[in-house]
């Protein structure tokens, strides 16, 4: 009898924990669903940077010339709008062409992984995601070493 009650507890405790986690998960919109649609880049700023001399990189937005330099070797180079589609596809729209890449959310949906042609792979930290706003961070070592913050708005 005592052994049976132990077994019952051994089954009930994990089931209770797992059940509550699943109920919570299924009743809310997942980040994978939330990210779908069109997002427009609204700003590029340094979240953290090695400030050189009197220049405070943290305070100012990154201008177009700097943005061009920073993103030159990246998949997202010159992208203005990002269109996430349900088939794990992402269309990056620039003013003269579209680039199709694959996307996936990894970890505890805190990493956005982009893959181009199964050759190039990039990772961005998904800092904030809601119905209106998305914030990505990535580490940069071009020009000024630091963490670059890209802010998007849903369109």
């Amino acid at each position, binding site marked *: 009898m005592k052994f049976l009650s132990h077994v019952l507890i051994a089954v009930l405790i994990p089931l209770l924990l797992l059940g509550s986690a*699943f109920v*919570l*998960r299924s009743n809310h919109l997942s980040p*994978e669903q939330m990210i779908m649609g069109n997002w427009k880049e609204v700003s590029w700023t340094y979240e953290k940077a090695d400030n050189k001399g009197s220049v405070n990189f943290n305070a100012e937005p990154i201008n177009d010339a700097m943005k061009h330099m920073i993103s030159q070797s990246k998949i997202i180079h010159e992208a203005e709008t990002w269109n996430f589609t349900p088939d794990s596809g992402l269309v990056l729209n620039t003013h003269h062409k579209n680039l199709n890449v694959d996307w996936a959310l990894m*970890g*505890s949906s805190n990493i956005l992984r982009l893959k181009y042609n199964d050759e190039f792979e990039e990772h961005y930290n998904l800092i904030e995601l809601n119905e209106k706003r998305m914030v990505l961070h990535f580490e940069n070592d071009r020009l000024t070493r630091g963490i670059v913050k890209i802010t998007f708005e849903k369109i």
Partner: protein
Amino acid sequence: MNTASRENRKLNDKIKFGMMSAFTAGMVNVSSLVLFFSFTSNITGHFAILANELANGNIFKIAIALLWISLYFTGSFFSNFLIRNGATTNKYLSHSVPIVLEIICLVAVGLYGHYVYAETLIETEILVAVLLFAMGLQNGLTASIASFGLKTTHLTGLTTDLAIHLSMLFKKDMANKENIRNRMKLMGSIALGYLIGGAVAGKIIHYAHFMVFIYISVAMIVIMVYDWSKTFSIKEMYKRQRQRQRAIFTTTDEQDVLGKKYAQS
């Protein structure tokens, strides 16, 4: 066998078992970090995420953190439950059940990842959960076997203990304490095993991808065989000891009888 050499043998066994377990845990952690961007051999980070998401009110992420933590908890719970309830009947069986369950989890993740995984979020969450359950099983097993003094899947507590023991050695009256040195040897070996496991996984993961979990399962089978051989050799040792003691008693009894006969004559 005298007490000192028996203690030495016990320590060597613990070092080998601890190093092998830590080796596999290191491999699992680095593999999951590369493949899923998530740690699976410890849950301190997941507790931090849970706390942060609680503060932000992000229910979805709270649920995921809860799911992962509860799976690790469940693994440790089952491990100790099986060992404590099975120890009286068959020690080896009670040790091997958590290892077999862990192997099943690792093989499942390896095969699913290799043949089915489409990199969706729900798949990632479930595969990470399975790995956390497996690591919970392993940590529960090693901790239960070593009376809660040995944990091989994470190094925070171990590093703290190692530093404390090292500082003890600088105290003059403590410097010669053999058990402090032995504990340090054990902890150092575990840290080294974990590091080597992680480095090996980091090296082969780019070629092996999800098949790395199959290799880890093979390493787990080696641990299981080692545990079996130790349990078997300990059983044999006690059997031989009992036979020897019985032989000594019999000889002593015979001598007594002969002595009495001599005295009577």
